[in-house]
């Protein structure tokens, strides 16, 4: 059965009481174990906010400074805790401001429930003040959505929403509630949802497929694993480690798979994809059996599909049947959640090791170190590199921090170089590539896991997309460590302009404000580093702080991220310069 489902606080409220729809919303959230939600009030959701006021001891509502911030905070919370993140907003612009976060959660399979207020039922379709068809707008980017027009629908719809958001391949669900339904009184009782008749969240494990997969793996001379977020979402980290150790398979991660396996694990061979490591990219086209675990062969992973792993037999462990053969044809598909599938295959696996094959990865690492990593981490030139900032964070965190990244060069550098000992420690916007994700997501991650250090690494571009969430940090005192790597450019786009558009830097230079002054304006301790000798001390000071801390590091303006697989190229053609 679904392990996530089991964790739900199965708190049935069976004795019925007469309450308003708005109060029922709160009771539903409490019954689902929600103690924290992010949002922004407004006209059509005011009855629910009135109840939030009454229930503030049980349910902590965090006022973000923009509804997009609420969704990303809910996502950060979900990614760090594995629980469902909740965001709430009013109708119209409040609702449309949620869309970017919802789309991000959809493509990155993040469990989230969004609640929006809606104009009263009799006003639907009249272009009433702040009326927008949010159910229509959110349909393509939600796992499920529903408009409630009667209070009596609330318990069942909420139960279903949480069940759908967290089960199977997780995703965002939106519930739109008309204002009349919030006011309406009804007999409330609550039953958690355990099944939806038209929905099979986890396909039944087929033992024949498992055996077939085991045969291919056992017979492989050069097997390679690529693991994705499915390992984390399926809480299969231990099973995964046992699996690769038993079969002795070099294992590479996708951007979202990062942290499912400790960085230091001897079989961890780095990242695949556009800015992934040299070895796993090149050797994807040399392995004889490619084993994909909980990943979806995104185009940023595969490069040109017609030249991707054509020599290899492909085994695909996947929870979502629609992902099988979507991009890469699987010789064997093992449908199911990663935990059960990997447990299932273990008895059929031979104890194995592939020393000389693993050595090939290490040989590639040596080349990459020489051509790329050395300059990134141990620069001899004056300008600070993004890589050395991450190295200092590693030194201070010892690999125990959650690292939240935005989108762009800093993201690729952080994911390439950050060390992780624990799962659920890499939080980034992968599929959608949402600039502005990191700051609010870091707030959510910190509030969800207050015992952990949370470091947000952000570029100067993305930072300014949701910089207003410094206000949320000020108000909540969330002790987020913010590192802005400032190169005064939209760096990744500039890199592409340099490489593919003859250095025509169209709209990628940034005239930036005084970030330190802005942070201080929000009463957040802040520091700017421009010289190498200041860096280690500043990072230590930041990490030692008990409160939020802002660190701006002015880095080299026109550094590029390598390795790189240019769009349309094969993984074999990964460039080192």
């Amino acid at each position, binding site marked *: 059965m679904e392990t996530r489902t089991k964790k739900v606080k199965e708190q049935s409220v069976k004795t019925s009481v007469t309450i308003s729809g708005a109060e029922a919303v709160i009771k539903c959230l409490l019954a689902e174990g929600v103690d924290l939600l992010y949002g922004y009030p407004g006209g059509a959701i005011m009855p629910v906010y009135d109840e939030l006021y009454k229930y503030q001891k049980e349910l902590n509502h965090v006022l973000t400074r923009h509804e997009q911030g609420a969704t990303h905070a809910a996502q950060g919370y979900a990614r760090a805790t594995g629980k469902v993140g909740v965001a709430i907003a009013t109708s119209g612009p409040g609702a449309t401001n949620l869309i970017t976060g919802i789309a991000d959660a959809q493509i990155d399979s993040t469990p989230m429930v969004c609640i929006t207020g809606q104009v009263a039922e009799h006003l639907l379709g009249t272009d009433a003040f702040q009326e927008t068809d949010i159910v229509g707008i959110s349909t393509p980017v939600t796992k499920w959505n529903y408009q409630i027009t009667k209070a009596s629908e609330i318990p069942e719809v909420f139960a279903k929403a949480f069940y759908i958001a967290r089960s199977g391949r997780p995703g965002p669900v939106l519930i739109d509630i008309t204002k009349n339904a919030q006011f309406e009184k009804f007999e409330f009782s609550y039953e958690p949802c355990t099944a939806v008749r*038209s929905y099979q969240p986890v396909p039944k494990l087929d033992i024949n497929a498992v055996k077939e997969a085991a045969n291919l793996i056992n017979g492989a001379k050069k097997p390679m694993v690529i693991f994705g977020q499915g390992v984390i979402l399926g809480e299969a980290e231990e099973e995964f480690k046992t699996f690769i150790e038993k079969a002795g398979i070099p294992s590479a991660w996708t951007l979202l798979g990062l942290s499912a396996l400790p960085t230091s694990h001897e079989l961890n061979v780095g990242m695949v994809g556009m800015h992934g490591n040299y070895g796993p990219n090149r050797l994807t086209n040399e392995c004889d059996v490619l084993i994909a675990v909980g990943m979806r062969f995104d185009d940023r992973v595969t490069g040109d599909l017609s030249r991707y792993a054509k020599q290899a037999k492909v085994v695909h462990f996947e929870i979502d*049947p629609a992902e*099988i053969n979507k991009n890469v044809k699987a010789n064997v598909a093992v449908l199911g959640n990663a935990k059960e599938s990997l447990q299932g295959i273990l008895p059929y696996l031979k104890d194995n090791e592939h020393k000389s094959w693993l050595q090939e990865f290490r040989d590639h690492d040596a080349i990459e170190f020489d051509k790329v990593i050395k300059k990134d981490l141990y620069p001899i030139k004056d300008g600070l590199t993004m890589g050395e900032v991450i190295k200092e964070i590693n030194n201070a965190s010892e690999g125990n921090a959650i690292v939240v990244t935005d989108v762009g060069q800093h993201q690729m550098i952080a994911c390439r170089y950050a060390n992780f000992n624990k799962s659920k420690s890499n939080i980034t916007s992968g599929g959608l590539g949402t600039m502005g994700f990191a700051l609010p997501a870091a707030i959510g991650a910190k509030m969800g896991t207050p015992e952990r250090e949370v470091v947000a690494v952000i570029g100067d571009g993305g930072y300014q997309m949701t910089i207003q969430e410094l206000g949320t940090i000020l108000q909540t005192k969330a002790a987020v460590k913010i590192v802005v790597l400032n190169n005064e450019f939209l760096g990744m786009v500039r890199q592409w302009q340099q490489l593919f558009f003859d250095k025509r830097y169209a709209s990628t230079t940034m005239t930036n404000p005084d970030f330190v002054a802005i942070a201080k304006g929000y009463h957040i301790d802040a520091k700017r580093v421009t010289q190498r000798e200041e860096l280690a001390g500043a990072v230590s000071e930041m990490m030692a702080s008990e409160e939020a801390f802002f660190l701006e590091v002015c880095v080299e303006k026109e550094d590029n991220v390598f390795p790189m697989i240019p769009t349309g190229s094969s993984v074999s053609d990964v460039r080192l310069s």
Partner: protein
Amino acid sequence: MSEKQTYTVSIYTENNIGVLNRISAIFQRRHINLESVNVSKSEIRSVSRITLLVRVTEEQIKKIIGQLEKQIEVIKAYYHVDEETVYQESCLFKLRTDLLTENDEIQKVINSSKSRVININKDFFVLEKSGTKEEVEELYHLLNKHGIKQFVRSGRIAITKEEMPVSELLESIKK
């Protein structure tokens, strides 16, 4: 790459508001035009059957079926080529009543096309025809020279020749 051809897509869904929107969005996102759409009851109470006609490759339609079945409210989706189904479209023509008395040509067309008059008054009559798209189109051409006042055609509806395994699935849902 396989060639594009016409597929009949049969989708069993919950009868809920917004399901059709969710389904049509899957096609729209992939820049695929829906040739025809029909939504109706199915053999199972409270389960709808959506019948779509699309021209795509087999590779495309297989992936689309996966995306359709992924939707929470979709119970099962199938695709079939014409030979695997028995299918019909229905159409209505509005024509001037005096055409019936002017000559016997219209009467002959009605008889030979196996269409039938379902409503008549002194100004106009309504002709109904069920058949394949080709039969309907042939009739359209025959009538068009006499002047068609209104024409409407339904989406394709189709029954598959083979038992669809969905029947058992739906049976199990019923209880």
